[in-house]
């Protein structure tokens, strides 16, 4: 058992009351709150997070499927169905890597993504100032293999509307990773340039950790199924230069101690804790675990074999023991 055991739950709403209310309302097909949330454009990342929660439903809800046809001039209708279409496409594909995915699954994946892309392009047309459709178009571009140059063009569309859009950066990093259409060099250049330029305490500094995570995953032993919850330091994360860069990220995030907990910040700290834990720096990991509190995120813990919560708890116990 952990020394200080906050109750750990995997909560897509991060305990946010408004997010919970939104999830419940949209589950019933009630779009009133969603419309209000979408109209508030003050905090683009919070809006992005809430819109994500609103469309986080298994299968294809009827109200979402119909909405753009019922209100063809409503940008939000197209955006919501497009954003949902992405997750729905991945439902068809499964999360395995391309070489393990059947051709029928792939066909369905591409069909659904194609529909999502058309929805999102329509949303972007109807709401030309909204960065959100463009952020999601990064994901469809990745799945439809439009290539890194097109990804770059779409990313430029996002940051022209909101420079530090968190979801767009996270999706772009996936796109420029070697496993999709990028390369190691492109991924690290992107992560480091954006992290270095980001405002102090921005969770975007963790892009660098995410790039190292991708490199670790690409190692022959990094396949999730073969990786046991690490007792000792593991592969790429054990590299001294990697640990040095992780500490640089942690130092930039440290000034965010008093900042309100956001999903992005929680994810950044989970990434750091993971990187330090696998690299064997238990002291640095413990610091991150303390800052995380109960806010465990699925990523990156699902990359280890076994249960997410158990992986997190085991790593946290080891870190706290060392302290």
């Amino acid at each position: 058992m952990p020394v200080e055991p906050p109750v750990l739950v995997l909560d897509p709403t991060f305990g946010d009351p408004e997010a919970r209310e939104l999830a419940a309302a949209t589950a019933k097909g009630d779009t009133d709150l969603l419309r209000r949330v979408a109209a508030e454009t003050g905090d683009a990342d919070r809006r992005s997070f809430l819109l994500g929660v609103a469309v986080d439903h298994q299968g294809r809800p009827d109200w979402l499927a119909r909405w753009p046809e019922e209100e063809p001039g409503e940008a939000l209708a197209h955006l919501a169905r497009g954003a949902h279409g992405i997750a729905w496409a991945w439902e068809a594909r499964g999360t395995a890597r391309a070489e393990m995915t059947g051709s029928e699954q792939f066909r369905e994946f591409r069909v659904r993504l194609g529909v999502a892309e058309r929805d999102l392009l329509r949303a972007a047309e109807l709401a030309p100032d909204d960065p959100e459709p463009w952020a999601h178009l990064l994901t469809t571009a990745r799945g439809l293999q439009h290539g890194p140059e097109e990804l770059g063009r779409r990313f430029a569309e996002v940051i022209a509307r909101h420079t530090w859009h968190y979801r767009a950066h996270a999706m772009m990093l996936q796109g420029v990773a070697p496993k999709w259409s990028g390369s190691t060099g492109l991924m690290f250049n992107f992560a480091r340039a954006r992290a270095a330029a980001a405002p102090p305490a921005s969770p975007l500094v963790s892009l660098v950790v995410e790039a190292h995570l991708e490199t670790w995953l690409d190692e022959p032993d990094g396949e999730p199924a073969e990786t046991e919850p690490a007792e000792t330091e593991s592969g790429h994360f054990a590299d001294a230069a990697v640990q040095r860069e992780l500490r640089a990220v942690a130092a930039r995030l440290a000034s965010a101690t008093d900042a309100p907990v956001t999903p992005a910040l929680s994810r950044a700290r989970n990434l750091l804790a993971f990187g330090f834990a696998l690299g064997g720096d238990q002291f640095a990991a413990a610091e991150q675990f303390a800052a995380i509190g109960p806010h465990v995120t699925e990523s990156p813990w699902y990359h280890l074999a076994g249960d997410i919560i158990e992986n997190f708890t085991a790593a946290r116990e080891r870190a706290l023991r060392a302290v």
Partner: protein
Amino acid sequence: MVSSPRRPGTALIGLRALLGVGLLLGFYLLVAILMVLVTGTMIALAVLVQAVFHQAGNFFLWLMLGASGGGAAMLRGAFGRMRSNRDAEPGGLRVTEADQPRLWAEVRALADEVRAPVPRVIRVVPDANAAVHQRVWLFGLIRGRVTLVVGAALFATLDRAELRAVLAHEFGHVSGGDTRLGPLVYRSQRRLERTVAALQGSDKALDAQLARVIGVYLRLCMRVTLAVSRSQERAADRSAARVAGPEALASALTAISAQSVLFQRFTVGFAVPLWKAGRYPTDLYGGLRAFIAEPCQREEAEKLREAALARPTGRWDSHPSLGERLALLAELPSAGPSGLPTAEAGLRRGAGSARDLLDRPDDLERVLSLEIAREITGLADPVPTDWDAAAEVYAAEVVGRAARAMTDAAVRVGGRWDVPGFDQALELLAAGRGHELVSVSAPGADAPGDRDPQVVRRRLERVLAFVFMTVLAAEHGGVWKTSWEARFELEWSGTPVGELVDRALDGPDGVAAVRAELGRPAVDLTPVPPLEEPVHAG
């Protein structure tokens, strides 16, 4: 004057044709014999089982029939309904005498000259061929209307004398009576082929054996009927030579042998991509004429002609080889045939294009092109496209994908998400990193020698041309033009694309010249350094 409506040697060929038909009808006899053998053997075995083992012979018989199929597949093939028992109406456009009076007059005069019945229908089809069809009943004893089919590509490529020779050849088939038994031979052969295919497709051991027997019989029939067919072709050639002159026929046959291949290439290269894009070329045959007139295609036609001349007649050919036909024609008297009216005697190669026979040929060709596109695309209204607009369609198909693969490779290797791939490619070329572009854009081609500058250059040249074309079309006012040699090319006011590619592959100075002309910036591809830990004051 042609003294007789019958071709010389027709009687002999007729006998052989009858032999062919006899053999095909004999197929039914063979099937009957095989069935008697199969069922007889089974019944005999069943009787034997009952007599020796006192077992139920009935049951044994059913068992054998079930296991072997009892030749049912053969019976189905031989006697089952054929999908289409009628002569299929040839496609294309039907042209009436009101539409094309001069063509009809020519056809009428020629038919009279060879004493063949005047066709009731003329249809113009897309390709480079001609044919006659005749409705027949009672094994060809009663003959009905004749349909003449002329390929529009012939109008586009032959002169009048050549077309006359081709039509005379076709009428020779009618007056020689070849069309009497043609449909019967064709249908019987199809039936035999279908039976063999059905037997081969069966999983029963008995059927495999039956397929072998009938297969041998089919080959025997084909040998006879194909030999007959070749004789009929030779006779039709002789008949046409008498009317139209051996030189005109020889030159028509030579032209068609090469141009039917070129027509096919033209279709694949220039029409198919338009059809795929839901379009149709408004001037299909104007394109074909320009394509064939292109010097490189003339060379190609010459090569095809030589290859056709070198090919001997094969035993499975329906027509004698070109060489054999030309040799036969060379032996015929070339002086003005007696049957030719004096005005027509002047018709020699080059005396006007066959297309001059058509009224409003552009309209006819346009409607035909639309009809083909409708049939192939299934669209009611494919988009009309002239040849210059077509270039963009070809380019989009070929250039876009290849150019994107290269600029994407440049982004991967160069590592800048916020710089166009084209600029990164130029930078990589200036830095002598072209081989990296090659190995990333064409993964798997990582053989030794890939760093050999000549190999890298060869691999980069073509795709770089595509990249330049894309950039010039999008940003420098470049215009796509259809080229009958290269399918498409890009016209713009600056240095030709080929030279730009050469410069880009000539190291830093060449790249600098390209950048200067196109106004492109140099790019810094130094990797972004890792984040540094902040230095604490203490």
